[in-house]
């Protein structure tokens, strides 16, 4: 094993080590040792990732097996790493955000009794996510895929006495399982037709399989690639919360805020985006699948952004904004602009982590009040939080020179140039999304940090485990401790600056041959010709529609929440139908609860009562027993004990025998 290979192993194993120590011996070693061991693990992993990243930049790559998991017949299933520019980027992003979140957690969870458990979980998550992105085959991808789902489940339900939390985590797991169902079938199709689960082997075979058809329904032949890609994408829809499997993500906000930042914004939910980028050699072979992807992404980007407008819970606003941003990434995938999707994934990881952690900082100051209607005017009490959230909001709205501008603008540009069916709709949807994004981002900022200090009339937060947060002396809100603000600042820097990497990332061929784009999909190539540096891009942007949409969105928020704060209420009552539809989130939750959850329970119950209890047991099993019982009861009458019965029977018998045998 070379030095580099040891380093690769170190990246996932260091956080795993921390997770195991904090998880199994957390009570023994106490709180501070638990956070140190996990932070050290992630820090080691981060440094190793950076070293790997440098190595990859120097032109090295690695594709090899760690151990053979299983063999069966001719099939070999390996656990192995594929280290290239795509995975190295993800490794750095994941470990960096994770490290920041680990440090932040010291402050955020300071008084929680489950402190050690929390650190163990987030380290375990980091391990799982790294296994997912570093994988060189579908099996390990699926392992990481489900393992991050497990940790997400554990963390959403972290406060396990809270009924909403344990409802949300079950829902998250099950909805994700629906996605994984498709994903596993996709993997199964890959194995069935390619005979291997190794990425490199599958990608090499893909072009010659592209004309292959499959008959899933009699008389209908579908392209194999379309079937595989759509099945795999269903997995991405679950994990990356795309319509209609998006329903779990808003509810996941029941979990502690650090994990909303780490798992439900920056890393885990982007696994689907990463996966599709990784699978570009397959997706490029199916126009239909790309079309499907772009339409789903566009629906998510637009309609989830709309819901963000009416949310009053600060975390839920950010959650719906995450859904919408994930929609943007998905749209980029559909337009074959994988590198733009990955670029947005990276910038989004930073600025969305800032928004969530900033929201968390506000939540601490508000003693776990999350309703923005009871906030307002916090700017002067929490200047650092305000500044970082503002940066996050500017980046989220896609305003230059913040990171989100570059990535979002390149997605819009790529979609405009794309010729895939559905791109026209997607272009309109994401343009509308830009306006809405500007609006909800600044609604959050103004609602929380500006205007009247409504927290003075807030109802007391009387529920559950976190009462004890309140005893900090005065009830005046104050800035959070350094363990909270330092990660915020460190994440705010790339939220500003990461966008400037657009040159090398998108147009400098950073991804090289890790992402494959067919010659028919030349949106990015076209953009490359027009790219003349970041400065020129920003100058040019000021003359284009998206910029002004974002600005007018922000302006509308300013008008409604600063200038005329009484107006939103008026608008809400004037357009009550729309606002009810949005507040009910288009009725997905109600429908799923009634139709799928209730339906499955009802079906299960009826099958059990009719099939098992009535038919099999009642009619056949106990019925047979009853039949035997009834028959023997009948026969029993023969043995009545009365001599004259026996004598009578004997006479009849004798008579019969005589008449039969004696002729």
């Amino acid at each position: 094993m070379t030095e580099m290979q040891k380093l690769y192993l170190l990246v996932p194993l260091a956080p795993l080590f921390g997770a195991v120590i904090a998880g199994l011996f957390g009570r023994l070693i106490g709180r501070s040792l638990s956070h140190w061991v996990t932070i050290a693990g992630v820090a080691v992993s981060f440094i190793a990732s950076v070293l790997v990243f440098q190595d990859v930049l120097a032109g090295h790559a690695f594709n090899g097996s760690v151990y053979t998991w299983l063999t069966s017949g001719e099939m070999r299933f390996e656990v192995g790493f594929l280290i290239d520019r795509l995975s190295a980027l993800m490794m750095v992003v994941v470990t960096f955000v994770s490290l920041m979140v680990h440090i932040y957690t010291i402050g955020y969870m300071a008084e929680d009794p489950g402190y050690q458990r929390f650190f163990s979980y987030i380290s375990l998550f980091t391990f799982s996510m790294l296994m997912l992105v570093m994988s060189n085959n579908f099996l390990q991808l699926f392992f990481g895929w489900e393992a991050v789902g497990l940790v997400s489940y554990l963390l959403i339900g972290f406060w396990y006495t809270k009924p909403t939390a344990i409802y949300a985590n079950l829902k998250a797991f099950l909805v994700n399982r629906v996605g994984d169902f498709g994903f596993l079938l996709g993997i199964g199709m890959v194995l069935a037709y390619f005979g291997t689960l190794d990425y490199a082997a599958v990608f090499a075979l893909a072009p010659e399989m592209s004309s292959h058809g499959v008959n899933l329904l009699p008389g209908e032949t579908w392209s194999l690639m379309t079937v595989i890609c759509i099945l795999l994408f269903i997995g991405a829809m679950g994990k990356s919360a795309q319509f209609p499997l998006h329903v779990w993500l808003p509810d996941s906000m029941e979990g502690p805020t650090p994990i909303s930042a780490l798992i439900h914004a920056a890393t885990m939910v982007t696994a689907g985006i990463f996966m599709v980028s990784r699978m570009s050699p397959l997706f490029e072979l199916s126009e239909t699948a790309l079309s499907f992807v772009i339409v789903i992404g566009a629906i998510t980007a637009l309609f989830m952004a709309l819901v963000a407008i009416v949310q009053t819970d600060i975390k839920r606003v950010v959650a719906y904004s995450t859904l919408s941003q994930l929609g943007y990434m998905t749209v980029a995938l559909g337009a074959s602009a994988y590198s733009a999707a990955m670029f947005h994934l990276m910038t989004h990881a930073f600025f969305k982590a800032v928004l969530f952690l900033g929201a968390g900082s506000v939540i601490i100051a508000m003693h776990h009040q999350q309703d923005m209607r009871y906030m307002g005017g916090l700017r002067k009490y929490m200047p650092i939080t305000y500044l970082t959230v503002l940066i996050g909001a500017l980046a989220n709205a896609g305003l230059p020179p913040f990171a989100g501008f570059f990535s979002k603008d390149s997605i819009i540009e790529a979609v405009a140039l794309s010729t895939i069916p559905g791109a026209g709709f997607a272009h309109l949807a994401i343009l509308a999304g830009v306006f809405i994004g500007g609006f909800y981002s600044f609604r959050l900022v103004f609602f929380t940090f500006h205007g009247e200090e409504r927290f003075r009339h807030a109802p007391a937060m009387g529920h559950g485990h976190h009462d004890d947060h309140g005893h900090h002396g005065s009830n005046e809100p104050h800035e959070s401790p350094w363990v909270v603000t330092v990660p915020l600042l460190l994440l705010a820097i790339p939220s500003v600056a990461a966008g400037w990497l657009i040159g090398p990332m998108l147009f400098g061929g950073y991804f090289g041959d890790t992402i494959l784009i067919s010659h028919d999909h030349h949106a990015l190539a076209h953009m490359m010709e027009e790219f003349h540096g970041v400065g020129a891009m920003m100058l040019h942007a000021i003359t284009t529609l998206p910029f002004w949409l974002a600005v007018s969105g922000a302006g509308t928020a300013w008008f409604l929440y600063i200038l005329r704060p009484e107006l939103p209420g008026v608008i809400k009552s004037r357009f009550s139908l729309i606002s009810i539809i949005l507040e009910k989130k288009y009725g997905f939750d109600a429908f799923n609860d009634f139709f799928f959850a209730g339906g499955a329970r009802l079906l299960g119950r009826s099958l059990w009562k009719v099939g098992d209890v009535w038919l099999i047991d009642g009619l056949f099993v106990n019925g047979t027993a009853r039949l035997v019982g009834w028959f023997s009861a009948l026969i029993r009458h023969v043995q009545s004990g009365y001599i004259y019965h026996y004598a009578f029977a004997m006479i009849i018998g004798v008579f019969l025998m005589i008449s039969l045998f004696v002729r």
Partner: protein
Amino acid sequence: MSEGSTLLSWVIWLPIVAGLLVLATGSDRNAAFARVIALIGACANFLMSIPLFSGFNRLTSDMQFVELAPWIDTFNIHYHLGVDGISVLFILLTTFTTLLVVIAGWKVIEKKVAQYMAAFLIMSGLMIGVFSALDAVLFYVFWEAMLIPMFIAIGVWGGPNRVYAAVKFFLYTLLGSLLMLVAFIYLYHRSGGSFSILDYYRLPLTFNVQILLFIAFFTAFAVKVPMFPVHTWLPDAHVEAPTGGSVVLAAIMLKLGAYGFLRFSLPILPDASHAMSGFMITLSLIAVVYIGLVALAQSDMKKLIAYSSISHMGFVTLGFFIFSNLGMEGALVQMISHGFISGAMFLCVGVMYDRMHSRNIADYGGVVNRMPVFAAYFMLFAMANAGLPGTSGFVGEFMVILAAIKVNFWYGFLSATTLIFGAAYTLWMYKRVIFGPVANAHVDKLTDIGKREFLVLGMLAVAVLGMGIYPLPFTEVMHASVNHLLAHVAQSKL
């Protein structure tokens, strides 16, 4: 090592003799003594079975550790034992599970301790006998004898409705096995007076005869697995059985039915197996989907896990009847893994039952507040039951689903629904029992697991995780025998 070894006999008879010794300690006054002997017997049995695995030659599909001696000359019946790559793992599973059951019943069983321990030790020997018998009559004797201790375990240490459950269990399985006996007698005559199972593999049989024999074997084995629609004895038996009984029933006894298909139906009746594969696959898929939904509706924890067992065993029969390496080995892995997981699940319910004397989900809620260590274990096993990668529950299901997709996409589609249903019923139960605020005064009084319970669950946790992370050693043992078996199945006897 293999030649002239008497290891198999030792592994079979040691627990039986130990069981008789335990019985001899008599009444409950000597309970402590009975427990110690039982523990020594179970430990020795487990240690003794390890060389079967370590000394096993992975390169051949021949029977190993063979013992052959005449038993009843008049009918050409032999005391004929041997193991191949298919059966060897189940012997280890049996000795491992018996050890767990003895430890788990240490304090919990207070009345008729000696009889309880003896029943499980004797059962262990008899079940190993089933897995290693190569003579049809010997197989049949072990097969039927094994019912008696289980019948007693349910009937004596069971719940309030134990008699109904015990009788149902006994009649169901006995009726099934009678047809198997008829099949054996037919094969005996047909083969010119041989009861050797291996002889039957080479016996030419016409198609109609094969179908009839297949039906006879099917009734015996399908009841045991159990397959839909002859599964209804299992939930009742589990509900009434004491924890140890449920563990052995789920972990090993169900495997015997599946093992029967591999030892008899497939190699002896290849043409009938092919002809009936559509039927078998259909029943298996019904087990996965229908039973998965039925499990969702259960309010009794043991019943829920029993239904989940049936659903998981659907993967085993599905894997067998798609006739591919991946499917067959996946099915075998699933059998071992299900042994660990279902055993663990029943032990977990047992842990709670010992404290609360209720199996009803509605009586619980918020157990994690009082039993955090237990909750962590239960979480692991629940996730394994839901087939999470990294646990053994994933490996077999993954292999079978992948193999099924290769045969027919829709087989894979239907079987993969377990990803959703399996997670739904398991985690929904977990949520209602473990999570939430403390539900009532009884839950409030719960105490976390002790050292003994920690040990038992810990051993299973290691097994579940070990097999999930590195399943290679398990499948490597099977390769030669599975290839051999598939070759037999592929060869028509017409």
